[in-house]
């Protein structure tokens, strides 16, 4: 437990990060930036897990381990996503979302 800092401060930061990530995902028009926004979301989840664990349930480790697994899987996801972005770049020569629009309803 961090002296003098209540749990709400951490939760406000993580919630802000989450919604900045969601907004970034919706507003940004570049595939790599969208990927960065997703990473923001995942990291806000990490903060949540660690803070809940540390403040509310300090005698166990489930939250800490969950955040470790999220970090690992986020790396795998980013690797595949970037490979696909490179594939897109080879096909249409840029990575703007507006140009990834061959299929629409």
């Amino acid at each position, binding site marked *: 437990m961090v002296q003098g800092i209540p749990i709400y401060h951490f939760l406000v930061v993580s919630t802000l990060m*989450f919604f900045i*990530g*969601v907004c970034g*995902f919706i507003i940004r028009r570049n*595939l790599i930036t*969208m*990927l960065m926004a*997703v990473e923001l*979301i*995942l990291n*806000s*989840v990490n903060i*949540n*897990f660690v803070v*809940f*664990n540390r403040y*509310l*349930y300090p005698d*166990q480790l*489930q*939250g800490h*381990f*969950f955040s470790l*697994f*999220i970090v690992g*899987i986020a790396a*795998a*996801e980013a690797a*595949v*996503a970037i*490979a*696909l*972005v490179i*594939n*897109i770049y080879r*096909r*249409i020569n840029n990575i703007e979302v507006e140009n*990834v629009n*061959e*299929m*629409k*309803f």
Partner: protein
Amino acid sequence: MNLGQFILMRHELLLTIAAVFVLIAELAINEKAKSKIIPIALGVFALVTLIGFIPAEPGVLFGGSFQSSPLTSFMKNVLNLAVLIIFLQSEGWLKKPENLDKVSEYFILTIATLIGMNFMISSGDFLSFYVGLETATIPIAGLAAFDKLKSRSAEAGIKLILSSALSSGILLFGLSMIYGATGSIYFTDIAQNLSATPLVILGFIFFVAGMGFKISLVPFHFWTADVYEGAPITVTSYLSVVSKGAAAFTFSIILFRVFNAVFDQWQHLIYVLAVMTMTIANLFALRQDNIKRFLAFSSIAQAGFILLGILGAGELGMTAVVYFVLIYVFTNLGAFGVATSVYNASGIETISGYNGLYKTNPKLSLLMTLSLFSLAGIPPVAGFFGKFFLFTSAAGRGYYILVLIAVLNATISLYYYLRIVKAMFIDQNDQPVPLFRSSPMMRASLIICLAGIFLVGFVSGIFEYIRDLSHLFFN
């Protein structure tokens, strides 16, 4: 540690062995004879499917993280069977020259996602559930972008990975709230400590939003049609049957097991989602001309019907969901099998391209018609019984208005399913798809689907068997 208890994980272990086996076969086989991998992988996978049917006692592994019961084993067997049919159907596509050098990748990626789905179904805590979910999702993006020289396929891949990454982020945010409220990630502990506090309900809504992406419920369905259209057709059938089936199984298990205490709260949410999913998907399906896009919207509508079974919570709801997915496997794969063989023979993907198909390929047209009737839920075929039990389980809980809406939607869906039937049987075409003969593997898969469409409906023992399994699961 007693090694004998790993019999509980037999599906996952066998599939891992199968994936490694295909990898070794890829290394061992001569560069010029890559197509030999197809029968090898098929044989190995058929063996795995067969061994999976050996019954085993229920039990838990890893301190409750992995839970196995006859019902989850049955779900895994259904998924294995579906993947076997898809492998049989993908032979013609894999033998095309541009795919020959990546045959083994197709099998390894597919089996890897299947392992993830099996872990997801058997998970006993949210950590193993999440790991299984990601193992099931990430390789599918690679599969969707499998035709790497086609820009549509690349587009499908990037759309799938980005929307699934966002959806799992949202889902995780919900899980972190539930962890904060209950202090555990284990299903049994959460179920004991759960009460309808605002934090739990908010977390639950995020969780449903994340799962809604995977099952493609309206309003989280926007990726579905694009990905289904862009991906290679066998991958589309994999996405629409196996991926969706596994997500539906897991969703119902978690809702019944973990969130049972807040049923009064979540029933409203699922109610609204069910109505929106059925109605909007049906309206969009009316105006499609691409057969893959059409089947995408039809599969979204079917997911809406599955929600009726989930609303019927408990034993009967679970039975109805599993039974419906079993029928859906045969039905949808029958339709996709015909679409795949027509595509392989002529490259046609539009519904107007099917005009006059009956004159040249009567058997395929008949199978397509039966599959579509089954999807629509017309009595003699299995689809009717699947829908019937879903409606019964929802009506058993008193959702009469919802059942009425669902019946109306089933009627609307009849219109667009019959549009394809009309194209095949009535519409004239100067240049219909020429007569062709599918490969033996494709024919075998179509015969399995045809048998499934009739037998699963008529053999009442299957429904009773699933009901016994889910009785065992809940007690």
